[in-house]
């Protein structure tokens, strides 16, 4: 009867909803958004998931590098699995298998409109004096989702219009929408919670602790994070309108980290740095000091040579060649110069001036932290070492050059870049008989030069910096060299030409194509074209300044000019 005993029949399945069907794409989540099918990794945030299929969901408070606050309510979307058909904040929801998301239903649209109306309820709408206008999310979303006049006829809440939070940041409490991105940045990224939200309701404001300033060394990032015009930079404040600015992809020259930035410029002036995303280097932050390090591009520049650049170059070549090959000549290179500058200068030093060692100048060391900032304030020290190795030159510190000058062994110096690690070195080097200095800015060594050549900083040429990790990164030309200046590679090339070298370069690209193979073994995988010249953001026509601005008649853009004020067509980039 054993066979009689049958195992108990499998209990019938309990009544209830069927289990979830197997995933359509194993290991991935498949769902639809506005009818489009999206396949993303499990746990992907809905905003990012939507962006991956080209659906934009508006948001203010969400930021991919910050925690989710979900307080702006701008990203509310319709989800098929939402209880009771409620709208769900997309920033807080992960994509789930089989869910249908709608971002353009009438319900969502009316919600977006209502959200904007609330956000703008007490907004002062002082766009004319707001630095954010042009890149303000309130403006953008109002035009996209709202476009209705305010129905609120009561006096608006009056709050602080100009609250200086710190050295670099000013707060306009009326414009603030309380997204708390700034609060979260300081708390989570910097772990230095200097900002908080005070008071309640429509009187809520962002504020520091009473009496304490916002003095974090990365505080400038809250200005970039702020989606509206509440936090503005004291440095850029009122200096221009963002739609006039063009952006060049550049590198911060403040330290050896080589943070990626956008260099915003108008005509031939740099106006600000904005961090550019690079997961390997700086993610999307930069320090305050680096943010302000563009200033020397504009101020205290050496823009002309005595008697014209051509005459000064000829004079430099003459006095340098008089000492060449006699052991009384030395060259000092600044690691603030780009790889191309140093390649060109090294070629001239070795072949034209018969030098076999290079002294290293550059800015003195500064502070360092474990976030981004490096103590070495020169962007290209590693690049200089590579160049020296490639040309078989011994690298020596600047202090040894000072000693050699003091002992009378070295009578002539050629400085490619006038930055020196210690101020007293300038006095020491000034004792040399011949001092040919290629300087970007006025300074102790520049004023001590016998032959001073105007050099251009990074925005005025293309180039490469090698950061402290040995990572070579490209930056691009923003505007043409100011005044009579030329990049170091240009000046070195002109000196080399007088000295009889055959190399001819008209752009940094040509320098790299000519000399870059010498360092190719030290830069595996690096290609000049790693920064394709597309996607450059051009501002609308740059501002004019009447006929007194020195522009050539009929030229709306600044053209590269030679020493006589004529357009140098050869320096325009090839189409």
């Amino acid at each position: 009867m054993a066979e009689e005993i049958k195992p108990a029949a499998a209990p019938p399945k309990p009544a209830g909803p069927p289990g979830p069907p197997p995933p359509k794409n194993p290991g991935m989540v498949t769902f639809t958004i506005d009818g489009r099918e999206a396949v993303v990794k499990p746990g992907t945030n809905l905003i990012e998931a939507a962006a991956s299929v080209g659906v934009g969901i508006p948001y203010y408070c969400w930021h991919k590098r910050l925690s989710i606050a979900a307080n702006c309510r701008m990203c509310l979307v319709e989800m098929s699995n939402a209880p009771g058909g409620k709208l769900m904040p997309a920033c807080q929801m992960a994509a789930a298998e089989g869910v249908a998301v709608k971002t353009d239903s009438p319900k969502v649209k009316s919600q977006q409109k209502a959200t904007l109306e609330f956000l703008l309820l007490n907004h002062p709408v002082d766009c004319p004096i707001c630095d954010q206008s042009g890149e303000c999310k309130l403006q953008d979303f109002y035009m996209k989702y709202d476009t209705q006049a305010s129905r609120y006829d009561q006096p608006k809440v009056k709050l602080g219009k100009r609250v200086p939070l710190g050295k670099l940041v000013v707060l306009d409490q009326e414009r603030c929408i309380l997204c708390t991105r700034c609060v979260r940045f300081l708390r989570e990224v910097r772990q230095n919670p200097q900002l908080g939200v005070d008071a309640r309701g429509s009187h809520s404001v962002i504020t520091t602790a009473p009496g304490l300033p916002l003095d974090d060394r990365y505080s400038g990032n809250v200005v970039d994070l702020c989606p509206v015009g509440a936090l503005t930079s004291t440095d850029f404040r009122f200096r221009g309108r963002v739609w006039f600015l063009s952006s060049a992809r550049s590198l911060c020259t403040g330290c050896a980290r080589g943070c990626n930035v956008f260099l915003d410029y108008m005509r031939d002036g740099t106006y600000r740095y904005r961090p550019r995303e690079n997961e390997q280097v700086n993610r999307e932050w930069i320090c305050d000091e680096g943010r302000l390090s563009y200033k020397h591009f504009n101020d205290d520049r050496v823009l002309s040579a005595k008697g014209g650049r051509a005459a000064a170059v000829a004079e430099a070549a003459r006095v340098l060649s008089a000492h060449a090959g006699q052991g009384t000549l030395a060259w000092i290179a600044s690691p603030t110069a780009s790889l191309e500058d140093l390649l060109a200068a090294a070629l001239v030093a070795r072949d034209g001036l018969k030098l076999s060692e290079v002294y290293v100048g550059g800015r003195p060391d500064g502070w360092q932290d474990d976030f981004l900032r490096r103590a070495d304030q020169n962007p290209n020290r590693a690049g200089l070492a590579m160049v020296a190795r490639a040309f078989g030159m011994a690298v020596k510190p600047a202090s040894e050059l000072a000693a050699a000058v003091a002992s009378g062994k070295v009578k002539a110096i050629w400085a490619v870049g006038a930055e020196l690690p210690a101020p007293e070195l300038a006095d020491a080097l000034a004792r040399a008989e011949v001092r040919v200095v290629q300087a970007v800015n006025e300074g102790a060594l520049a004023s001590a030069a016998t032959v001073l050549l105007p050099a251009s900083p990074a925005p005025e040429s293309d180039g490469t910096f090698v950061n402290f990790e040995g990572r070579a990164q490209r930056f691009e030309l923003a505007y043409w060299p100011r005044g009579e200046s030329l990049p170091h590679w240009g000046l070195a090339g002109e000196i080399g030409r007088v000295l009889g070298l055959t190399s001819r370069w008209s752009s940094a690209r040509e320098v790299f194509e000519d000399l870059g193979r010498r360092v190719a073994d030290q830069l595996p995988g690096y290609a000049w074209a790693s920064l394709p010249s597309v996607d450059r953001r051009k501002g609308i026509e740059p501002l004019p300044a009447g006929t007194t601005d020195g522009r050539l008649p009929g030229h709306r853009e600044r053209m590269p000019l030679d020493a006589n004020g004529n357009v140098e067509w050869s320096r325009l980039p090839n189409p």
Partner: protein
Amino acid sequence: MPYTIDNRPADVRESLYFPEIFQAIGLVVKTFWRNAFFSRDPNPDILERDRTHNRVATVQYPEEKVPYPIGYRGLHRLVPRADGSPRCVACYMCATACPAQCIYIEAGEVEGDPIEKYPVKFVIDELRCVVCGFCVEACPKDAIRMDTGEHPTATYTREGQIYDEKRLLRGPPVSYEKDPWLVRPSRLTDAALAADRAAARPFSSLGADEYSQTPGFSSRTLAAEAKGRSGA
């Protein structure tokens, strides 16, 4: 009524020429008599001139000026506030809208005032200006107008055509009820504030209508002034 050309061949009277010439002589003599023996009415408004005797239509330009119609786009001016500072907040809207790029602005920060921004420099190069009026349209503060009814005067140098904020800031002040400096704590004294508020009027963005909103400053008044000058 359409005009039709009469191609009838000339009759004897016409082919003689003389009869028509005599008639024409009479006409020209009459005109000559009127204009040579009677004095001209120097009213710059030609249509209002007394033409019973002298019918000369000339306007002696630099001394007499034809008043321009309302809405004529003349020389720019920066509209002042009651305390004499410009209404302009240096928002660059005019410079952005300007197709000729003739406006140059440098913004500065006002200490201790809710209107934080003001033009440190506001320069219009009238040689580059194409007189399109976009700057007036673009201005969100009614701070730049072209209601002066004047041309840029002739100069011997290019620099003379460059008008800076000192030359541009003129005309009677304008205030609107919702101007921020009237509704917020500002640097104005209480008395100035009260006077300004009393003169303020509801903001209207009716375009050309704004030209007539400044009492005592329009091409009509200019015309009246010119008339008074010529009468004196």
